[in-house]
């Protein structure tokens, strides 16, 4: 690229980037500012962006008054087991799609892409009825099963693309060295694919942690994940924005941190197909 003038750098690059970054994180800054503002100070006619007397009372009240620990625990269980179940099922499947040619391979791989676009409304009502029938409503397993409807198709595609990036010669070398095909898979290929598998698992964790709609329908008082707990704060009291923003910050933070670790891997996996065209 040709060298640009420093002034045009400022107006052509830094200024617009700054505006976009502010648009992206502005809502968070405001949310955080609200969360450390005393409830009374939030509703004053004279507007301040940052509070005069910063406080942690909203965060404390989440745990003392609202049982937020319990919500974190529920979210953790559901997200963790959704990720583990998803990987346990899709790692072998993706390995098979990537390594073997067999009758029906392409249509089966295609169906995972097609079901990815089914609207949630196509599944949620019958899942509700089915789970009521087998008696798992309002239990962790209900959400883990429901979340698998979107994590399994997604994960199959991601992992297949990660496995495709690993040369087939590696499998062949393992076979020549006397491994069985199953051994070649878990001794040689899985360790090489581990970064991709981990980031897919973390991505599943994040989507399960974030999910709201299934949780709203399939759980009530026994299991209450963070998104539901936050949504309930709107109904139970008149909206206490200090409390709500504190809960928002606490639930978004782990996800953002996790995401920073996997963004590179994830983007590689997702763009692999698209960039090649």
């Amino acid at each position, binding site marked *: 690229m040709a060298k640009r003038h420093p002034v045009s750098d400022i107006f052509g690059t830094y200024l617009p980037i700054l505006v976009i970054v502010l648009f992206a994180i502005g809502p968070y800054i*405001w*949310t955080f500012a609200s969360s450390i503002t005393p409830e009374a100070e939030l509703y004053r006619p004279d507007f301040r962006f940052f509070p005069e007397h910063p406080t942690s009372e909203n965060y404390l009240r989440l745990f003392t008054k609202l049982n937020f620990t319990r919500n974190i625990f529920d979210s953790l269980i559901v997200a963790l087991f959704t990720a583990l179940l998803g990987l*346990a099922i899709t790692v072998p499947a993706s390995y*098979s799609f990537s*390594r073997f040619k067999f009758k029906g391979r392409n249509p089966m791989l295609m169906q995972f892409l097609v079901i990815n676009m089914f609207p949630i*409304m196509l599944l949620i*009502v019958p899942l509700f009825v089915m789970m009521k029938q087998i008696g798992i409503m309002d239990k962790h397993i209900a959400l883990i099963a*429901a979340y698998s409807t979107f994590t*399994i198709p997604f994960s199959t595609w991601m992992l297949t693309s990660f496995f495709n990036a690993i040369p087939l010669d590696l499998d062949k070398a393992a076979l020549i060295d006397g491994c069985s095909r199953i051994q070649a898979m878990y001794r040689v290929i899985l360790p090489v694919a581990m970064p991709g598998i981990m980031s897919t698992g973390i991505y599943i964790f994040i989507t399960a942690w974030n999910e709201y709609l299934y949780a709203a329908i399939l759980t009530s008082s026994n299991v209450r994940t963070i998104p539901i707990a936050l949504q309930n704060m709107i109904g139970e009291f008149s909206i206490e924005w200090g409390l709500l923003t504190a809960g928002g910050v606490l639930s978004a933070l782990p996800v953002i941190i996790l995401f920073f670790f996997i963004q590179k891997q994830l983007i590689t996996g997702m763009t692999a197909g*698209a960039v090649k065209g």
Partner: protein
Amino acid sequence: MGHQPLQKKTDLLPYALITPALAITVAIIFLPMFRTITYSFSRYILYKPQEKGLIGLDNYVTAFSDPLFWSSLSNTFVWIISIIVFQFLLGLVTALLLNRNFIGRGIARSLILIPWVTPSVITALMWRWMYDGNYGLINQILSKAGIIREFIPFLAQSSTAMGSIIVALIWQGFPFFAIMLLAGLQAIPEELYEAAEIDGATKGQCFFRITVPMLKPVILTTILLRTIWVANSLDVILIMTGGGPGYSTHTLPVYSYVKAYKGMDFGYSSTLAVLLTILLMIIVTGYVRSILKSQEA
């Protein structure tokens, strides 16, 4: 990919490996889907169990003469088109900027991705608070800047509710476009630009003759993925307005949800869900076909 098969002709291992995934998919996706299709031809209202039974096309006939169905349908189009267009434009500008060399580029890229991982509930709550008609940030800023005199109840009046939610969705999704397009930009060989420069091409020519055509596959795929996602997304709407005020923010998935959850009418809700799916299938196949056609030409 030119993969040589690692196996003999009659080999069960590949099937054994995919069986768990297929079995679960059948149990939690295909089985429910067929049930929904059955419900869509049934009268099935939760609190009237004695009336449950097949009624043929009645629900579909009802839908086509239901003004709320048509307004939800047109809202769905407004929803999809405006969100995709603005997410794409903002994402493209962001990608082009991030493709330059500047100090702090890595940090800027990471920060810009944050909205994309934000839980929908948090997106909805943050924006709802910012739009608040009494103390919200946006009203405060607009009135300080002298743009408005009286605070606007953005989400409480039907003229502004839809637009306000659309802005929140643009915020949540533009980083996905930015990051996909950035990956596409980085895959364009630098030599193309160098060669064009030697031939005396202007910047504008470089953009429209090299960048756009080379980005085309990424653009087309990303738009497809996003369209499906945006068409189906309803949680932000539900939390911000619940479909109101009136029916002004009812899209098809919202209408279907409200029918099931508030109206307990599983039959009609399923009909709306099936119609939404058919609509989506038509859009997707039409889109893919027109791409294939343009590639042949």
